[in-house]
């Protein structure tokens, strides 16, 4: 039985700050994440075709690793984390993942030995638990999935992560149909159930191998909503609906830390500030530095409480200023340098607030994720922390209330469409039962009928 969070790690929102977490994490070669400074976390993807063979792939990651470490030393960056998000070949063939981790770590150790640069290697296993038609969260694929973690942990990875996909089949259907109960069921109930299983096993591997069970992100669901919602002029999903999905995702991603993970949470988990407020774990975030991968509406704001600062992902190739990983690692390192100066000079809270205010009123998503409001979502989750359903519902309702308050103040301006969508979501939420068993039973029946690819046995149901 996992221990659920029922209280906040921070006594008040103003204590949330970048570079410092309640429970710092020592990892890799001399790093202490959340221990009073920020570090860049560089993420990359091999060029198309590089996965044709194991040897080609290893060579590609060796080039990437060397490029990053060399640039960090060239500009005098004191620390860096590298994140390798597995291409499917590396997770489906755990030995490949292990070999890549070993090759990367060997290079990082050489740089650490020669220059003393603090560094760590994160490997993010691909969630390969599916076949062509269905999610296959348990069974044979799960064994390979777990083996992939073991292999990288034994061969040099310091931080273990995944972007798990439990609940995505129901969520994908629901988000395209404004089905609030389905969004809540997919992320808050099914997603949480899968997280509890996955993260207990990953944390066991971390204990066994002396590595760090780092954390997850609701990329598969809340980021899908954010990307469909898009920019201010896009007409694909109300941004008010997207941020409700995000608020629910905090209740879901928190399950990793309840099952033994200690952070740093994954970069694309825009829910991470909420999680930091509850669990006190260090977090990675991405914003203006991840424009190489995608656009968002909170490029500065999301830096507010980060412990590692990431670029999300960039394909490895040449640019005028070097290879992409060199260019982006340098950008990240200069941002971290600025935050670290603010920490040393007692100006961190001022810088944090400037970052927040540059985006807070740009969009309802940034407004809710601003640390003062994120903290309120955290409180709503902790209030019923023992119950995955109720805490998800609380988060969603609190999110609606926060947006309404912002709109009433006149500072957060909404379109009529966003206002109407918000009213619908809130009415849907308020009509939901407080009985988790009834919610489960009603939605199991409904989605077994409506979503052909939904298989309850994936969740042990």
């Amino acid at each position, binding site marked *: 039985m996992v221990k659920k969070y029922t209280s906040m790690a921070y006594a008040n929102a103003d204590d949330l700050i970048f570079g410092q977490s309640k429970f710092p994490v020592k990892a890799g070669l001399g790093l202490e994440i959340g221990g009073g400074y920020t570090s860049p976390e560089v993420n990359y993807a091999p060029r198309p075709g590089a996965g044709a063979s194991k040897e080609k792939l290893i060579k590609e990651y060796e080039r990437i690793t060397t490029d990053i470490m060399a640039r960090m030393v060239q500009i005098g960056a004191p620390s860096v984390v590298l994140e390798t998000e597995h291409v499917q070949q590396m997770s489906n063939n755990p030995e490949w993942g292990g070999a890549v981790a070993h090759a990367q770590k060997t290079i990082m150790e050489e740089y650490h030995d020669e220059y003393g640069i603090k560094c760590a290697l994160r490997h993010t296993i691909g969630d390969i638990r599916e076949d062509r038609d269905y999610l296959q969260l348990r069974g044979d694929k799960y064994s390979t999935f777990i083996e992939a973690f073991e292999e990288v942990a034994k061969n040099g990875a310091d931080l273990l992560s995944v972007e798990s996909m439990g609940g995505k089949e129901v969520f*994908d259907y629901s988000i395209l149909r404004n089905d609030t109960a389905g969004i809540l069921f997919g992320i808050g109930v099914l997603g949480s159930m899968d997280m509890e299983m996955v993260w207990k096993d990953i944390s066991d591997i971390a204990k066994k191998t002396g590595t760090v069970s780092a954390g997850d992100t609701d990329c598969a669901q809340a980021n899908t909503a954010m990307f469909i919602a898009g920019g201010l002029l896009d007409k694909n*999903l109300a941004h008010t609906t997207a941020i409700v999905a995000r608020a629910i995702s905090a209740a879901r991603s928190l399950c990793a830390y309840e099952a033994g993970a200690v952070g740093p949470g994954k970069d694309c988990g825009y829910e991470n500030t909420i999680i930091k407020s509850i669990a006190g774990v260090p977090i990675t975030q991405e914003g203006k530095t991840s424009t190489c991968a995608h656009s968002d509406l909170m490029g500065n704001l999301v830096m507010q409480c980060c412990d590692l600062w990431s670029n999300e992902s960039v394909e490895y190739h040449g640019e005028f200023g070097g290879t992409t990983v060199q260019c982006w690692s340098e950008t990240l390192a200069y941002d971290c340098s600025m935050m670290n100066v603010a920490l040393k000079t007692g100006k961190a*809270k001022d810088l944090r607030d400037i970052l927040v205010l540059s985006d807070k009123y740009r969009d309802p998503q940034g407004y809710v994720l601003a640390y003062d409001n994120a903290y309120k979502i955290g409180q709503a989750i902790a209030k019923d922390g023992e119950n995955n359903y109720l805490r998800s519902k609380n988060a969603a309702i609190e999110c609606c209330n926060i947006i309404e308050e912002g709109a009433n103040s006149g500072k957060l301006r909404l379109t009529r469409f966003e206002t109407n969508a918000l009213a619908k979501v809130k009415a849907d939420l308020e009509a939901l039962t407080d009985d988790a068993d009834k919610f489960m039973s009603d939605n199991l029946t409904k989605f077994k009928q409506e979503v052909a690819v939904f298989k309850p046995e994936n969740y042990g149901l």
Partner: protein
Amino acid sequence: MLDLKLEDIDGILVRYNVALEKEMTPDEAAEELYPKDELIYPVAKAIYEGEEDDVVDALQAAIDAGKKPIDLIDDALMVGMGVVTQLYDDGIIFLPNVMMSADAMLAGIDFCKSQTTEVPEPKGRVVCHVAEGDVHDIGKNIVAALLRANGYEVIDLGRDVPVDEVIAAVEKEKPMMLTGTALMTTTMYAFKEVNDKLLEKGIKIPFACGGGAVNQDFVSQYELGVYGEEAADAPKIADAIVAGTTDITALREEFHKH
């Protein structure tokens, strides 16, 4: 915490979507577009509202009044869906409304088919797939729904589709267009293989590609590729082909935005 004064916010950012929002509500705009025929109007309105049961009830009423089921597909269901797609293109309604309307329209088509032995004639046939190795299919599902909503017959091969299976489906179904979506740079490479194998067999149909990390530069590298930045580009590319633009260069000229 620090905060901005209300009057200072506009100097920091501009909410263009608020400033430019249309005056008319979606319901008012739809009302202006519905056909006036008293038997067709309720079908179109039920499609717009995404109410499957109401669509079927309205179709039944029209059939009872003497309308032919096969005619109702084009004259009522497609007309109703036309209202929806026009409102979406005009930025008045959002994607979930279109998806729900598309579901309602498909339920309506199934009902009409069940009431007749005649076979409806689609605008054209399109084969859709997600690249081999890639299981992210929400983009493909949107593309397929929008194509169907625009009157195309969609052969949906699903996700993680092996290259040879795509080729076999194209040979069998003889579509006017193939679509491919992918989230990852590592899987989109399969599109080039699909392109090469189609050309080997002498098949030269437009291959509309998009999604996630797919970009115009990549799609331009293979002969049949036409890049679609938005899912909503898929029916527009299909419409252009139906209207006679089958040359890949001409399609790229029209749809490549960068």
